């Protein structure tokens, strides 16, 4: 069974926000809700990096752990989905998620929380596949149509990859080998500035830029 995953290649993302726009249009996401957004670090500074972020469909999802009504479930492909009929809009998942994926529409003049809304990996919800009710609550079910998430498919530079994790890992590995860098950007040393681990040697003799 394939495991669905997103990965964003920060070396390729050009902050065009095409993924954000495509997602909103495909699923007719209401105002005030962005299932996906592009985050830029060191914006305007040479060497800035951008990443497209949405629900990462975690293997050990914190949103599932904290939900008091247990409205989340995971499909066979590892996609984390939720049942809006059970959601009470408490917002616990929003605080638990490290990616800020859960979104809450501003329902009413006083900003009341509505049902939580988030990226579904274009896999719909618990309703019948491609039904009108499923589209109204969760958006289009592209996986049922034999397709992949639209955000990944429309990405002009193929920075945002989505699909079978094994295939994506192989694609990213080939990119790293071609560039001669990239594998060392992962890890605690980079994330927290602690040189507790020796830097991994570059895969090839190519110069780092």
């Amino acid at each position, binding site marked *: 069974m*394939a495991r*669905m995953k997103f990965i964003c290649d920060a070396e390729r993302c050009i902050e065009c926000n095409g993924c954000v726009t495509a997602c909103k249009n495909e699923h007719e996401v209401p105002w005030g809700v962005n299932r996906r957004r592009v985050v830029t670090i060191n914006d305007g500074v040479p060497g800035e990096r951008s990443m497209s972020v949405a629900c990462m469909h975690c293997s050990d999802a914190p949103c599932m752990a904290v939900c008091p009504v247990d409205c989340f479930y995971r*499909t*066979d*492909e590892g996609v984390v989905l939720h049942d809006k009929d059970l959601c009470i809009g408490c917002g616990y998942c929003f605080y638990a998620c490290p990616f800020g994926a859960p979104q809450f529409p501003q329902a009413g003049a006083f900003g009341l929380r509505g049902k939580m809304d988030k990226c579904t990996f274009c*896999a*719909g919800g618990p309703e019948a*596949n*491609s039904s009108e009710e499923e589209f109204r609550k969760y958006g289009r*079910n592209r*996986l*049922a149509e*034999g*397709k*992949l998430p639209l955000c*990944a*498919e429309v990405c002009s530079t*193929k920075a945002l*990859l989505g*699909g*079978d994790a094994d*295939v*994506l890992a192989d*694609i990213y590995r*080939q990119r790293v080998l071609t560039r001669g860098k990239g594998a060392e950007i992962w890890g605690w040393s980079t994330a927290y500035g602690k040189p507790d681990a020796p830097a991994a040697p570059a895969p090839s003799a190519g110069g780092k830029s």
Partner: protein
Amino acid sequence: MTDKANLKRRQFLLTAGVGGVSAAAAVVAVKSGGSDAAKTDTAAQADQGGYRLTEHVAAYYRTARV
């Protein structure tokens, strides 16, 4: 003696004929049943609506390798 032999042979042929027809009917039934089962499996896969490596998905993977 000859009549008895003919009778035995006729009974044998009759039995073989009935058996053959039954076997053929069984084969047809199994074949049609298998076809139905295959159709059901395909329909079930479509109903599940999960990830499938379709031509569309394969084309996307090819473009991502550029």
